[in-house]
């Protein structure tokens, strides 16, 4: 009798453990599929570079631009965005690894603004000057004002809505 009760408990625990393991495995493979769909991310980059504005995806600037931005954070577009060296190094590595590899002019000083690159201007050539100045846009750097899914790395034209 007591032997049977033991056996039952034992089997019950094995069942619980097996189910638990199976669920963990399922969750990991879900997360992986999600990662493929969405853009690259890094928790430190997202929290540090997403505090004052939308965290601009690394693929929109070449590595030397990111390097120049990361070495001038104390005077960052009129704001102080200074970081400790350890965080700065970690974020620089992430940005460089995922930077744009498109051909660009390397004879000039690296551009610090995505919004000043020639591809940005050409992708947005149909956006009227008055649209950039709408109160809900304010600046071309405000990607999320029009790209409604930008937070998940999606800049597809199907998800563009110009605010009224």
């Amino acid at each position: 009798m007591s032997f049977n009760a033991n056996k039952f408990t034992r089997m019950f625990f094995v069942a619980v453990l097996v189910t638990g393991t199976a669920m963990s495995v399922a969750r990991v493979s879900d997360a992986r599929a999600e990662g493929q769909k969405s853009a690259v991310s890094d928790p430190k980059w997202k929290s540090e570079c997403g505090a004052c504005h939308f965290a601009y995806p690394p693929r929109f600037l070449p590595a030397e631009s990111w390097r120049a931005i990361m070495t001038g954070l104390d005077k960052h577009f009129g704001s102080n965005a200074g970081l400790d060296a350890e965080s700065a190094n970690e974020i620089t590595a992430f940005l460089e690894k995922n930077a744009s590899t498109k051909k660009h002019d390397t004879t000039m000083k690296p551009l610090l603004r995505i919004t000043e690159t020639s591809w940005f201007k050409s992708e947005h050539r149909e956006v009227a000057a008055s649209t950039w100045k709408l109160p809900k846009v304010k600046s071309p750097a405000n990607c999320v004002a029009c790209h409604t899914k930008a937070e998940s790395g999606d800049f597809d034209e199907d998800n563009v809505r110009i605010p009224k």
Partner: protein
Amino acid sequence: MLRVFFAFAFMLITIAGLALQPAFAETPIEVLAALKAEASGMPGFQEFSAERGEKFFKTKHNHNLSCSTCHTDNPAAQGKHSETDKIIKPLAPAANEERFTDMKKVAKWFKRNCNDVLDRECTAQEKGDVLAYLLTVKK
């Protein structure tokens, strides 16, 4: 054998429980105490004052900027970055339990924001006054 399973199950439950605890390193009161320890060593130290902190917070210093430019006149409300329009969560601990729970984060933002608003770092006295004020703000 059964005992091993029990021990293992308890271990898993304990680990899960620990992982779910919010990872707050400090409390706002501890941050205030650390500021006080720093400020009280300085010449001219006065007991922290919420009133002085409020005035400091709402006064425009340089560049026509005050702390309330981004954090609003009501620190229990959502703020907005003056340049980028990005939403900023409330600054008052009563309205946002994550505030003033990480000494390093607090130091980093005081340094940045004071430089933007005053072109210098804030003194420990000023930071203590501001936190004393923020702790009096109700939700």
